[in-house]
């Protein structure tokens, strides 16, 4: 085994020299130091239109209320089977945050007749990968499996979901694992910043339930899990998704045979109107001893995915901080040298969305960096963007979109979100058309609507850096890494 090299090379140390000499004769001759004209400028793209066409999602409703959605993806002999429950972190009772996640993790940990070990063996003997994802509004149980084992996978999914049983022993193990994972996540300043941002933006809103720390997990009992399961794991609140090289109609029938005995029961999920956006200067400081740099989050509540401003806002977000070419990165890192990075992000839930800027900054520049982030957000709403910036942002968003569902996992996530939130085709494969309609005026109109309100600022840093911030801001709310308010510092007061 050896690295690639020219074929049929004669032996001897002089071969390389001779090759180079020979090619000097054979290859097109250019004056010394000259280069071909085409090398001087980047080539234009092919005129070929960027048509994005995803497989159609076909959906049927079974008599018990369970919906079945299928998408035919020919190619690899792999199939993804998912079960979506329209209940997520936000559906945990306020007094039991984390219950949705623990319940989801308990799926597959036993039925009335079969043990957790037996079920895990059953799934892994197919070579399948089974995973659980709990998001704000929904939960997804996913099995990626070889095509030949799809029937077994459907059977296994039906068993673990419809006949789930919960024991104290398994719950103890699940709680322990979740506890350590949550504890481990607290070491990540980005996790701390993001969680604190949501915690404050969604004060007194069901979405705040998602921002729990590890200590709450220990209060969850088998009875709680069974109650959550009994309430939300119902066919009328669920969808089975199958994607791969499949026949959609035949697949829907097969799913029907397996899941028709799943007993339906109405599930009520009250609507939760989005909270008002933050509108005043508010600085939250999460004390995280041991971090090497300061992490800043700045964000606010925005529209949901169905809003006409959705696509213009994505373009806006891209201009602000989508890539290393965007305003935040160029300003905070390349120009001022405050930050290692600075980007903007969005996430959309069932009832609203959130935008935020995240930046990792040098501690000595914590205050000017926070000010600069707020200023950049303000500029977006105060001044129209340059048309070239808008076009570049659109070009990125349109060009990048297909990479999101290229992989098996990416496609599965995309489809689960589409079905779980009941999105329209603009959120399936018609996004590029929507992006093309966005112009400078629409972006500024959207910016004025959503960025005029002051963003909430969260800083994650060492306790000793707090003094730097205190000189600049009138009041700072100081939190521990679990999100508990320690105290409020006001300008002029000692720590």
């Amino acid at each position, binding site marked *: *085994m*050896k*690295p*690639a*090299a*020219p*074929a*049929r090379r004669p032996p001897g140390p002089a*071969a*390389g*020299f*001779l*090759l*180079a*000499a*020979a*090619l*000097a*004769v054979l*290859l*097109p001759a*250019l004056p010394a130091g000259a*280069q*071909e004209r*085409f*090398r001087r*400028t*980047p*080539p234009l*793209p*092919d005129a070929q239109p*960027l*048509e*994005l066409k995803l497989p159609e999602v076909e959906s049927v409703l079974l008599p018990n209320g369970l919906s079945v959605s299928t998408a035919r993806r020919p*190619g*690899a*002999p*792999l199939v993804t089977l998912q079960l979506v429950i329209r209940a997520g972190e936000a559906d945990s009772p306020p007094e039991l945050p984390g219950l949705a996640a623990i319940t989801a993790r308990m799926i597959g940990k036993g039925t009335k007749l079969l043990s957790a070990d037996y079920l*895990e063996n059953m799934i*892994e*003997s197919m*070579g399948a*990968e089974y995973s659980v994802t709990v998001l704000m509004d929904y939960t997804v149980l996913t099995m*990626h499996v*070889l095509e030949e084992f799809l029937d077994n996978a459907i059977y296994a999914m039906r068993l673990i979901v419809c006949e789930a049983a919960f024991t104290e022993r398994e719950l103890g193990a699940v709680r322990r694992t979740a506890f*350590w994972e949550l504890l481990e996540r607290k070491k990540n300043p980005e996790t701390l910043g993001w969680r604190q941002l949501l915690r404050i933006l969604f004060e007194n809103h069901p979405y705040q339930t998602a921002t729990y720390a590890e200590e709450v997990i220990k209060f969850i009992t088998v009875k709680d899990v069974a109650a959550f399961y009994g309430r939300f794991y119902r066919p009328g609140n669920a969808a089975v998704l199958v994607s791969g090289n499949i026949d959609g109609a035949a697949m829907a029938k097969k799913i029907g045979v397996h899941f028709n005995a799943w007993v339906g029961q109405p599930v009520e999920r009250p609507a939760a109107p989005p909270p008002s956006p933050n509108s005043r200067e508010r600085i939250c400081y999460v004390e995280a001893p041991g971090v*090497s740099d300061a992490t800043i989050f700045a964000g606010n509540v925005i529209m949901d995915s169905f809003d006409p401003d959705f696509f213009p806002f994505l373009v806006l977000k891209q201009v602000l901080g989508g*890539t*290393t*070419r965007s305003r935040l990165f160029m300003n905070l890192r390349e120009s001022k040298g405050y930050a290692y990075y600075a980007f903007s992000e969005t996430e959309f839930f069932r009832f609203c969305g959130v935008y935020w800027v995240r930046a990792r900054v040098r501690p000595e520049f914590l205050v000017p960096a926070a000010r600069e982030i707020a200023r950049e957000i303000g500029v977006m709403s105060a001044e129209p963007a340059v048309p070239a910036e808008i076009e570049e942002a659109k*070009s*990125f968003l*349109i*060009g*990048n*979109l297909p*990479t999101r569902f*290229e*992989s*098996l996992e990416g496609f599965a996530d995309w489809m689960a979100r589409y079905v779980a939130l009941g999105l329209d085709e603009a959120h399936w494969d018609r996004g590029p058309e929507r992006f093309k309609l966005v112009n400078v005026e629409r972006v500024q109109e959207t910016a004025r609507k959503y960025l005029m309100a002051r963003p909430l600022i969260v800083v994650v840093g060492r306790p000793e850096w707090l003094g730097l911030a205190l000189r600049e801001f009138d009041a700072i709310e100081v939190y521990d890494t679990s999100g508990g308010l320690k105290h409020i510092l006001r300008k002029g007061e000692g720590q």
Partner: protein
Amino acid sequence: MNKAARSLLFLACLVLGGFPAAAGQEAAQGSLGFPFQDYRLRNGLRVILSEDTRLPLVTVAVAYGAGTLREKPGQEGLAYLLENLMFQGSENVSPLQHVGFIQKVGGELNATTTFDKTLFYETLPSNYLALALWLESDRMKSLAITPAAIERTRAELIQEHQERLASDPYLESFAQFDMLLFPDFVYGHPLIATGLEMMSLTEADVLAFHSTYYVPNNAVLCIVGNIDSAGTRELVAKYFDSIPPGIDIPSPPRPVFNRENDAVARFVGIPAAGAGFHMGFRLYPLQAGDVYILRILEYLLLEGETSRLRNRLLRRDLTARHLSGALDERLSVAALKFFCLNNNAVMVGRSQKAILSEIDKLRANLISQDELNRAKRRFEMDHLNRLSTRLGRALFLVDAAFNGRGLEELGGELNKYLRVSPPALHYFVNKYFIPQNRVVLELGPK
């Protein structure tokens, strides 16, 4: 044409295997499930094309045989430094403009250096294929290496690595373990140790490494995606054909492992509370077909919650709080490595015993066909999943090219893994998983 020139032409044709461009493998498919073409340009650049029209995307990967194995003692970090200098501009592309061009159209890119190669790749809308080829050919042809760029890049890399070391107390132990497991400079020294070793690299080192290894006859260009093969061949010829080849690159030396003693136990101080260890079995020299058995063994022991070692340490005995592992292939040598974190030194001992006990069981008894099939299916899933993306497919083809495997044989590759039998596995474990091949590095607090 005089006699000397004709001789030179004849010699060149011998060297290049034909003129014009060597006809390669045309639209081979086999049981890989996708077509590809494999050919060389006159300057020795190996080109692999594979059409996939499902999405309007294309992945362009360029790999140079310029991994850490090409570094000499005193040159540690050179391969990594060069990887990063490749983004510092070339004759027609300003520093970091490469990244900007790709991001501007929604593309994604990255680079990585391994033991045997340095790989650059980008996935972008397929109508921008020419842009990617223009960028890659410009830095292949005319990379701008300046003292300032070297200094800046080196300083950034050292700082970044020092930060990584500070934030991950176990990181340094991985490099130390590799040096113990592969006690041969070429095969065992890390991509980057503390970072400070890069301080001694000179501009001359950098230029010499670049001019020797970043040449078309030491590279593979792989393009996978929504392409028209004929048009793509023209584009490849346009951008790469006139880049002159470099000197002949010798094959890397065979490893000389100068330690024959039993398991080695070392102890390094880690600042974090807790304990853990690395354990590895070095397999050398590998025989044809060994790698198929080894990969299935890796899955059997480590992949999935019910795999032997994860089940034993994390679920049954509860002696470990983390267990991971990997198969590390380095040309003619390979190693199966485990990394385990425990709560205390007692659990370290118990976990080690448990791993050895599971290996002993494999040595003593034939594994059941059911258990073996489970590992194979899991591997098959991962293998097919990897080939389902353009990037995964490109990296697979590049790896195969670097491993010296004929691409025409790749169609049967999966079956070689799936044909591993219980007796073959039993023989393999008895042959290689012996104390003389075992290395342990125990970790504990300072």
